[in-house]
Each structure stands twice: as structure tokens, then as C-alpha cells.
């Protein structure tokens, strides 16, 4: 379900360069899954702004936004107590296909926003996700503490190397893969990995096709050269493409497009997929890697 809600701003605080937390109080009962989004009416602007749900609980919604243009800039000046009209409960969101034991979460830039709710969800579902968040520079780094507070470690990558791994999220993925190789040769480390990943045996067979009944067309490698068996990603399209190429396993990718309505009525946000044209706002924004044509 989706609905129009009037939500009251309870916090609007800068957390990194050009990056803000917007906390809203009100009805969140339309939200079901991480990766869904809301469409926020910004006073003075005609169209709403689609923003991912960063996290939510009954009565409270947290968004995270980055100043990109006029609308998000105006959002920074919205004061506490203001009521915003929000179209809530939009999009499909991420899911956990059966059989996935070692999910990897990759967020880039403002694409990290939905990864807090996703991390919470994956932990609740009994997996221990690995998380890689990529930014341009140290002063843009956000959401790391919030995710680490859930008890999982986060690898940060910055393009300029001012924090964490120097380079792109794919460099961090490669490093993680390398780490795994060395950790497997180190018996103690390997045990730790097993614990983290819910007793999943790294050397065991893991079927990579057939998640949630959908046949996977990926040429996913069945060996254990990756410390992950499924990838969740959100970020700019070139990043998603690179992550997909690097992942070697199936995954779910959150796509982005300029939107007119956000609820499927205007056909503004069409994405060609292997299953035909889809609306990012309605059939997405999350798409299985098997249907994406990059």
C-alpha cells in the first residue's frame, strides 16, 4: 500500500558534507521492506523528491539526503515542527532470497541511505551481512556508526584515500576477497568467519540459482572465491555496473531515475530489463541482477 501522509519534521541535521538526516514523525505503517522509498513534497517545488527509507519504526521515519539541486537544498532549511506531505510505502524494496547465507551490502555515495534498514533486516533474518560503503572523501562518510552499532563491521572506501580503503567500492570488494583467501589459510580467522556467517561452511556447496523461485540467469561462480554469496547494492549506475561485474554472484540492485509521480501512473521512470520495460518506482527500485541489462 502507498498513501499520502503528513509527517512532522523532528530532526533535520547535517551529518557529513552536503548530507543530512531528516527525521519525521507520523504514520509509517505503509512501509514493509528496506529499500522502499518515499516521495517528499518540498515546499516551493512542483514535483516531489524521491528519497529512500534509511530506517523506520512505528511512528518514525528516518531519511538521509544529499544536496544535489534546488529541492534538496531547500530541504536543508526546513525547520523542526514543519509538516511535510510524504507519499509513503513506494517501491518494492529488498528481499532475502532463500539460501542466501553470506550477503554483501555495497552502498555508494547517497546510495548508502537504504543500507541501514537493509542491515537491520538481514540481521533479523539471521544473516551477518558484510558492508562496504564508498564515498568521495572522508568528509562525506556517513551511516558507518549507525550500521556498526548493529554489531557488524563496515569497510569504508574513499576515492581520495582520506579514510578506509583507497579507491572504489570494487577495490574494497577485491580486498575483502583477498582477505578471505588469506583468512582461509589462517585457521583461526576461518573459524571467526564461520561464526559470523551463521555457521555456513565456506567449502560447502551453495546453490546460487533459484532464489525465491526466480531462475537466475547469472553465470555466478559456484566456487568460494568470494566471501559473499549475494550482493545488495545502491548507488550511481556506473558503480552498480562495476559492482555487478565484480560480484560474480546474483544480487539485488536499487536503480534510480527522474520521477514524475513515484507510484506508477506517468511512465516517467521506465527501465528496460530482460523482462521488458519496468517502472523503477513500481516494479523497482530494486531489481534482481538476472533481469538487469547494463
Amino acid at each position, binding site marked *: *500500500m*502507498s*498513501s*499520502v501522509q503528513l509527517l512532522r519534521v523532528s530532526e533535520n541535521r547535517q551529518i557529513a558534507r552536503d548530507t543530512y538526516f531528516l527525521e519525521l514523525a507520523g504514520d509509517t505503517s505503509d512501509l514493509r521492506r528496506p529499500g522502499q522509498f518515499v516521495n517528499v*513534497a518540498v515546499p516551493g*517545488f*512542483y*514535483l*516531489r523528491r524521491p528519497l529512500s527509507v534509511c530506517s523506520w519504526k512505528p511512528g518514525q521515519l528516518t531519511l538521509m539526503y544529499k544536496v544535489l539541486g534546488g529541492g534538496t537544498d531547500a530541504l536543508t532549511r526546513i525547520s523542526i515542527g514543519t509538516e511535510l*506531505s510524504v*507519499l509513503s510505502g513506494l517501491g518494492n524494496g529488498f528481499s532475502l532470497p532463500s539460501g542466501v547465507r553470506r550477503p554483501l551490502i555495497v552502498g555508494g555515495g547517497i546510495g548508502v541511505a537504504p543500507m541501514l534498514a537493509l542491515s537491520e533486516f538481514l540481521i533479523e533474518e539471521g544473516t551477518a551481512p558484510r558492508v562496504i560503503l564508498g564515498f568521495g572523501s572522508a568528509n562525506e562518510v556517513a551511516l558507518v556508526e549507525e550500521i556498526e552499532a548493529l554489531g557488524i563491521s563496515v569497510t569504508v572506501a574513499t576515492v581520495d584515500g582520506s579514510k578506509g580503503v583507497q579507491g572504489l567500492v570494487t577495490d574494497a570488494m577485491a580486498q575483502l576477497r583477498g582477505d578471505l583467501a588469506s583468512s582461509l589459510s589462517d585457521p583461526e580467522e576461518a573459524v571467526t568467519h564461520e561464526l559470523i556467517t551463521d555457521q555456513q561452511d565456506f567449502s560447502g556447496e551453495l546453490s546460487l540459482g533459484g532464489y525465491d523461485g526466480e531462475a537466475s540467469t547469472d553465470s555466478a561462480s559456484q566456487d568460494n572465491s568470494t566471501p559473499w554469496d549475494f550482493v545488495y547494492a545502491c548507488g550511481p549506475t556506473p558503480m552498480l555496473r562495476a559492482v555487478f561485474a565484480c560480484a560474480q554472484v546474483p544480487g539485488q540492485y536499487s536503480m534510480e*531515475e*527522474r*520521477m*514524475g*509521480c513515484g*507510484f*506508477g*501512473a*506517468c*511512465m*516517467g*521512470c*521506465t*527501465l*528496460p530489463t*530482460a*523482462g*521488458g*520495460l*519496468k*517502472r523503477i518506482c*513500481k*516494479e523497482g527500485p530494486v531489481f534482481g541482477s538476472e533481469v538487469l541489462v547494463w
Partner: protein
Amino acid sequence: MNSASSGNQSSEFGVGPSVALGAAIAANLRADRALMSDTKLFAGQGSESDSTRSGCGKQDPVPELSVDLAGVRLQNPLIPASGCFGFGEEFLDFFDPNILGAAALKGTTREPREGNPTPRIAETPSGMINSIGLQNPGIDVVVAERLPALAKFYHQPVIMNVSGFSIDEYVECCEKADGLSEFIELNISCPNVHGGGMSFGASCAAASEVTREVRQVVKESKLFVKLSPNVTDVVEIAQGCVDAGADGLTLINTLLGMRIDVKRRCPVIAQSIGGFSGPAILPVALRMVYQVAQTLAVPIMGSGGIATAHDVVEMMMAGASAVQIGAESLRNPLVIPQILEQLPEVMAELGITNLQEIIGVAKQ
């Protein structure tokens, strides 16, 4: 939505129906709609629309919202505009579409169309620009799947919006659509496709020719022609369409517009130029409806920038028998129920008891 997708490469909409199946469905739909117009559609309105509610003597008159549109009675003049209502399902979360006066469906062509590349949407102060490019599943799928799906939850008049790239295509689509909906709206004004759409609406000769040809096959539905504002003399084109047999006109489709992303130094939408709509274009729409209504005695659906109950009254005073609401429903899916709620209040303020009576009253 996923259920409609067959996973085949050609389109989101799966395989088309067989011809025989299409014909059977069409026949059923005709019967359904005829039944509805005999019963649900018009029944019960008579009693409600008597100018006072039954019972005790002196009461404020009940505002009469129903209007006559080319002989079809609408319970109110509020119609979602083509392209801003999909095929109806997307609004079910927000309100019961049976409150509408009528509903215009997404523009339909003979073949399925994938539309234009993205980005397709840009914003303007008080409006938006779109270049969807008539993405639609094609007339056969609309007839076989979309109309029956709509008929399950929606029982008010339907306006099928038909587009084409040749006269043949318009004729074929209209032939298949005739009688399945109360109205067929000929879109000869889409700015977002090359070599079709608007080129028919740009000259009086082409507009009247396509209207004349289509008129031959539209026997049961009311035929409206939707005109473009991007012309020098809209009255001349309107006249051409009426002379060629149109039952009514829709005025206006989108203006041509564009935005530039100054950081990236390129147009915002992939097609550079698109269709501009929303409250910013209301004065243009009012002017054109007024110009045509002053000259021709023809039913008009007023479209362009309607966002409030006040705008509805204004558009009807300019000469529209009903109004279409497009962009505003995209940013506020509740706008039509909100207008419906506010209309009686606005009417009361303005001393209007019957909407039908204000059509075209604006005179100097």
C-alpha cells in the same frame, strides 16, 4: 503488475491476445458498458440531483455537479487526463475511482511502444515537462487486458485516448476501440513523438482529414479530438475537426518546453524538448478554450493546469463542459477527491447551484 509480464523480451506487456479472443473480449466489454450506462451509470443520479434533498422544506439547495458531455451524463466534471492515470490501477491505493466523472486512459497506439529514452521528466516552477513518448502496450493488449482489468473496479465513463503515426493507424485503433468506451479521444497533439501525433494537429487540413477518416469507424463512442496549443490559430483547427464530424474537442495538450541542467550543460530530458504542463499553463488553456467556445458550439473538455476547485469553475466558465486534470494528480494523487470535496463550497461562495449552468458564461 508483474502478473501481466510474461518475461518475454519484446515488451513489458507480454504476448498479445489472439484475434478471436480479442473480439470476444471486445463484445463482452461492449455489453458490460452498455449495461452499466443503463443501470449503474445513470441510475440514482436523478433523485440525488433534484435540487433539494427530500424532507423538510427550506434547505440550502444541493449543488448540482453533474454535467452533460456530448450527450453522456457525468456525475461530475472531473476527469484524470490521459497519461496521468495509467490504466487506473495505480490510484486504487489512494481513492475509489468511481467518484470520477470519467477517466481518460493512457494514449494507445496500434503497436506496443517502448517510448522515449530516460530521463523523461523535468520540473519547472509550477509545472513539469515530460517526454514519455507514448509508451503503451498497444491497442490489442489494452482491449484484451487493460479494459477488462479496469472494468472490475471502475464503472463510470471511460475515455480511450488514441494516437497514431498514420491515418491508417488512427483508423485501425479507433475501429478496435469503438463502443468499448463512452468516448474516444483522438490525440493529434502529442509533442513527444516524431512524425506522428502532433503533426496531425499542426494543420487544419491534416486535423480534419484524420477526424473525417476516423469518424467513419467511430459509430458508438463519442469522438473527441484533442488539440495542440502549439499552433497559430487553434480556432481554425477546431473548426476543421468539428466540420469533419467530431462530437467534441479536448483543449489543450501540452505546450512545448525544455529545461537545461546548467551544471552538466545539457538538456535535462533525453529528448531535449518535451510537453510542458501543470498550473503554469492554465492561462493558456483557458484562453484557448475560451477562443474556441466563443466561436463554436461544441462540447469541450478543458485540460491544462487544473489544480483546484476554483480552476474547475474558471475553466467551465471559459466554455468547458468537463475538465481534465493531469500533472497535478501526479504530484498529488488525492487532488481529484480533494477538488470534489471543495467544489460545493466554492460553488456556494460564488452563488452557483448547478455547474452545467456556468459553462461558457464568461463574457465581456
